[in-house]
């Protein structure tokens, strides 16, 4: 997470305009309207000078009073009307359009960014970027910009006007009011610095808490809750201590700023009073000035309340921008489609994070169409990474991946994924009917096609037994589908998709035993006459493979048929023997 120094006002303005997208004209227009509104407001205030003078002059002239009063009313009216229209930006749907568009843009980005980058984000993070960050950054755009204008434009207009009335008074205001700026900067700096301490203590608390909650079963089973609870207590107390220290420090600048106007008033009364007494200033001028200055308290108070909102806006903007700036996977010309389904990896090297070590080194192999290839090896050796490269999770660092002679970089994601079906261990089901969940594999499928796929996948029966059969809503099942049932739905999807290449990622791990047989039958249906790549742990399941790739530490050490590598690969032989011993115990 970037903890860069807070953006300057101008940077925020630029970001706002960028985020406003095609509506930035409306945004700028509303800013202009606000500007006019506050200039005229300042002028309306300024009318107090001549107005009060007219009211209290020894020869009060009704017409003169009406004259100045009308001006004041006129300026006020313009101010109110322009503000009304300025707020149209937030109140007539522009904001809504912008948030909508932003979400659409972000959604599109999610679809086109490399899957690898996608997986680096925790789901919670992305969720909050697309929902709350979008709202936080945009919803208050209008109000916040209006406030900024108000506290800058109005005082400036007032001070300018005062110069014409009495330069001494203007000077006083000029000296004191701008104190708001360094106070504001100081306050933000202080709050961000102490924020670091606070953030550290807070994230420590957060991780302590998560550990505590997740580890409770273990802790309770060993009667150790007390000790961990003590650690947690310490973290909680530390947060409190830091907060208390910080509070004393930061309240002062904040409150001085809030009372700035009152301080100005006091100074004005004192000095002004002196000048009135010695005759160099008219009482009525001083009175008018006091009324005008007191009008400045309201926006200042609101502004103080807005600072945290502003900070939130700032960081929300930045998070959104980071996502939008992610480079999408590019399809290189000439765009091609694969016509046959041999797979070829040629001298492939890949490292996940460009400067770290390679997760794949010099991987080369050929897979003939309709053959069965297994990848075996210890955890972390790169098996899954190979399949990821085939799906173009990310681009290889060196070498090439080809399907039917076509480099996958020349295929659109859509074309590529059309040719590949994957059966993962985790099955994602969304809150819709069972039918639609399966249909996602082939949106245009008819119900008959779906049922056929389910029969082959051995899940038709249990689906029929659900409360509403295929129309049962997954959410209503309350997670009551077993691992095996979910796995079979996943296989049904793959069967329905009918892609020529099938990737099975440890398909029989974590299954309940009763459905294991059912799942196996389903897999049989799925792999028939297709090009299959299997990541296998149970070596006994892949003895008939046309080719087995034995992997160790990012490289392929041996490849060949089962009998061949039993001899040529020490690693494979050891794995096989260990598993055979285990198997013997079970018969």
């Amino acid at each position, binding site marked *: 997470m970037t903890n860069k120094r807070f953006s300057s006002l101008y940077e925020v303005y630029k970001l706002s305009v960028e985020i406003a997208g095609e509506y930035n004209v409306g945004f700028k227009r509303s800013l202009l309207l606000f500007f006019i509104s506050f200039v005229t*407001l300042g002028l*309306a205030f300024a009318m107090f000078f001549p*107005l009060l003078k007219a009211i*209290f002059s020894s020869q009060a002239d009704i017409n003169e009073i009406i004259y100045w*009063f009308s001006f004041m009313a006129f300026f006020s009216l313009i101010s*109110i009307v322009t*503000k009304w229209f300025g707020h149209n930006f937030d*109140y007539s749907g522009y904001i*809504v*359009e912008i948030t909508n568009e932003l979400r659409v843009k972000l*959604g599109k980005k999610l679809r086109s960014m490399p899957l690898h980058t996608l*997986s680096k984000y925790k*789901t919670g993070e992305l969720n909050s970027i697309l*929902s709350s960050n979008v709202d936080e950054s945009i919803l208050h755009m209008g109000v916040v910009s209006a406030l900024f204008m108000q506290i800058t434009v109005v005082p400036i207009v007032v001070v300018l006007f005062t110069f014409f009335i009495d330069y001494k008074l203007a000077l006083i205001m000029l000296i004191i009011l701008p104190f708001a700026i360094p106070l504001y900067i100081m306050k933000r700096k202080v709050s961000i610095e102490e924020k670091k301490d606070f953030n550290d203590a807070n994230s420590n608390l957060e*991780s302590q*808490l*998560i550990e505590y909650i997740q580890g*409770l079963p273990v*802790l309770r089973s*060993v009667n150790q809750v007390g000790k961990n609870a003590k650690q947690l207590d310490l973290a*909680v107390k530390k*947060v*409190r201590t830091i907060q*208390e220290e910080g509070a*004393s420090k930061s309240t*002062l600048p904040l*409150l001085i700023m809030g009372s700035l106007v*009152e301080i100005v008033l006091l100074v004005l009364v004192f000095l002004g*009073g002196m000048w009135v007494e010695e005759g160099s200033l008219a*009482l009525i001028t001083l009175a008018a000035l*006091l*009324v005008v200055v007191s009008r400045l308290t309201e926006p200042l108070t609101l502004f103080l*309340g807005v600072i945290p909102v502003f900070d939130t806006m700032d960081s929300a903007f930045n998070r959104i921008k980071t996502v939008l700036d992610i480079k999408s996977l590019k399809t290189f010309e000439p765009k091609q489609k694969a016509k046959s389904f041999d797979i070829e990896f040629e001298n492939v090297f890949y490292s996940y994070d460009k400067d770290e070590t390679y997760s794949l080194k010099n991987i080369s192999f050929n897979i003939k169409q309709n*053959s*069965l290839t*297994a990848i075996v090896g*210890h955890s*972390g050796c790169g098996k899954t990474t190979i399949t990821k490269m085939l799906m173009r999770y990310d681009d290889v660092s060196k070498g090439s991946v080809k399907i039917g002679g076509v480099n996958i970089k020349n295929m659109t*994601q859509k074309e590529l*994924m059309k040719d*590949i079906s994957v059966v*993962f261990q985790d099955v994602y089901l969304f809150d819709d009917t069972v039918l639609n969940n399966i249909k996602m594999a082939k949106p245009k499928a008819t119900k008959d096609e779906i049922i056929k796929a389910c029969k082959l996948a051995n899940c038709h029966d249990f689906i029929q037994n659900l409360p509403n059969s295929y129309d049962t809503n997954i959410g209503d099942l309350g997670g*009551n589908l077993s691992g095996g049932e979910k796995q079979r739905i996943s296989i049904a999807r793959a069967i329905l998709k009918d892609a020529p290449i099938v990737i099975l990622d440890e398909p*029989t*791990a*974590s299954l309940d*035993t*009763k*459905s*294991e*047989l059912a799942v196996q039958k389903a897999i049989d249906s799925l792999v028939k*006459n*297709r090009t299959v790549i299997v990541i296998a742990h149970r070596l*006994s399941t*892949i003895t*008939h493979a046309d080719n087995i790739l034995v992997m160790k530490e990012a490289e392929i050490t041996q490849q060949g048929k089962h009998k061949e590598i039993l001899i040529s690969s020490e690693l494979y032989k*050891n794995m096989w023997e*260990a*598993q055979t011993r285990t198997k013997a115990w079970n*018969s």
Partner: protein
Amino acid sequence: MENEKMKKSLWAIMKPVNLHINSAILLAAFSGITSVIALTFLAFVVSLTVNTNTTFLGITMDFDTAFIYLAVISFISFFSRKYAFIISHFGAFKLEEILRTNLSKHLAKVPLGFITTTGTGKLKKVLLDDIKNLHAFVADTTPMIGRSISTPIASLILMLIIDYRLAFASIVVLILGVIIMSYVMKDSQVYRQAYENSQSNINKAVVEFVQAMPIVRTFDDGTSSFKRYNESLENYKTNLKNWINETGVAAKFAMAILSPMPTILAVSGIGAYFVLNGSLDLVSFLAVLLIATGMSDALMPLMWMSNFVKKSQAAAYRIADISNEEELYYSNKVKELNSFDIEFKNVGFKYENRDSNALENINFEVKQGTKSAIIGSSGAGKSTIAKLIPRFWDVSFGEILIDNQNIKDIDSKTLMNSVAFVFQDTYLFHDTIKNNIKLANEKATDEQVIQACKAAQIHEFIMTLPNGYDTLVGDKGSRLSGGQKQRVTIARAILRDAQIIVLDEATSYADAQSEEKLIKALANLMKNKTVIIIAHRLSTIKDADQILLFEKGRLLAKGTHEELLKNSFDYIDLYTSYEKAYNWDIDNKGNHNDK
């Protein structure tokens, strides 16, 4: 009804810092009042510069004295505001600490099942976010409430005292504004509801879209999922627009009428008239001009505040939900167990939020030192049974006995010392491997830890790590493979040396090379203990002293492997499929005939 409950929760939860809150509100209110007084006095002081005989509200003073009074009142206002702020913040800090400490202590005593069902995500949200929300409420909103209520009232009263006519002028403006506003806001409730509904829908749509993306993209480029997402967005957009259109006018109108100028114009105009006809002097006019907007200025913040209050109420409600969960009752009657026979007597169990029984009429015995295997299809109730023994939940009917004592009567320490459970979710702390294992027995020597690890077949692996036993485990043990994590957990259980072992054998084949080691480790763990094991391996089942076959929450059959092969069709069925599954291999040439 929901709202009533929520309101009560909020104030109830803030009770521990009532003193802080009330003081903050009072001080803030006092600050508001004194600043209104200061403004009024300001007018008086100013006019004293010219005419020291000015009387205002019956007071006479010279300029210097008056100025000092003014400065003092201003400082009082300033300092009471400062202290209101500090007190409210300190109150918030205290409340945070109290709530977090109490809730975490509470979580240590509620049924473990509650924690696993509620989920760490939700618990985390409550303990972190919801409490933070309350912090903001106590720290910022309470003093605001104080000030926003006292300022308009003080302004009104003072205006009435100074010149009731002008007071009426400003009230009229205000009332006019409120009337028009409420007229325009008539239907907003309906739209607000629609808006809030679509808010939660949009969050749902986003979550679904985001979570599914990695999977969805393996099917297509996300077109159909994107379509659904888009539809939710459009829906949200329409609802939001409607709401804004309906309430936008009212909001803009409110801002217009409640802005200072209308009030000031009214007061200036009418005041000018009275000055001209001699019934109003400068001081009074000036004073009213300074405080007239006190009422309208306070209304906007009050409106914003109701929003905060709502959010905090919802947070308080969620917090209360958790703290209201009943703690497990331990009777502490039985402090020692002499034997470790387990008996389930007519046990029935129903999850809180589900309709049907998860378990019904379960009766079986496990004699000390024997091994019972629980088998059955998923959803049959296997892990539920296992979890009832360490009291993850209490049974709904019947009893579970150890040494002929109801487990509810057994002292919690004794129970936990007697029952070790090894389940699928192996949790390792962000600490050294040694400390993770030593959790099981703080007093264990290093030698004992090593012995346990050797028995668990993990010692060799640990010795290959950079710092051996002192290596730090990554968050949630992420740097170990599934099989390795399991063996560390087994080492813990071995070190614990409890007499009863409850074990879920799952995640077979997660880790091929570990398989052999895992089996050895389990064998060592179960030696000479009373064991209940949710079995997945053929060997485990065949070796068991007793097999318990479950289906849909009922115990279908019990006996040894040989007995069941003779007596139970269900068992034969299940066992045959185990065997078939075991002998399967992947074949894409369609060479399998139906085995």
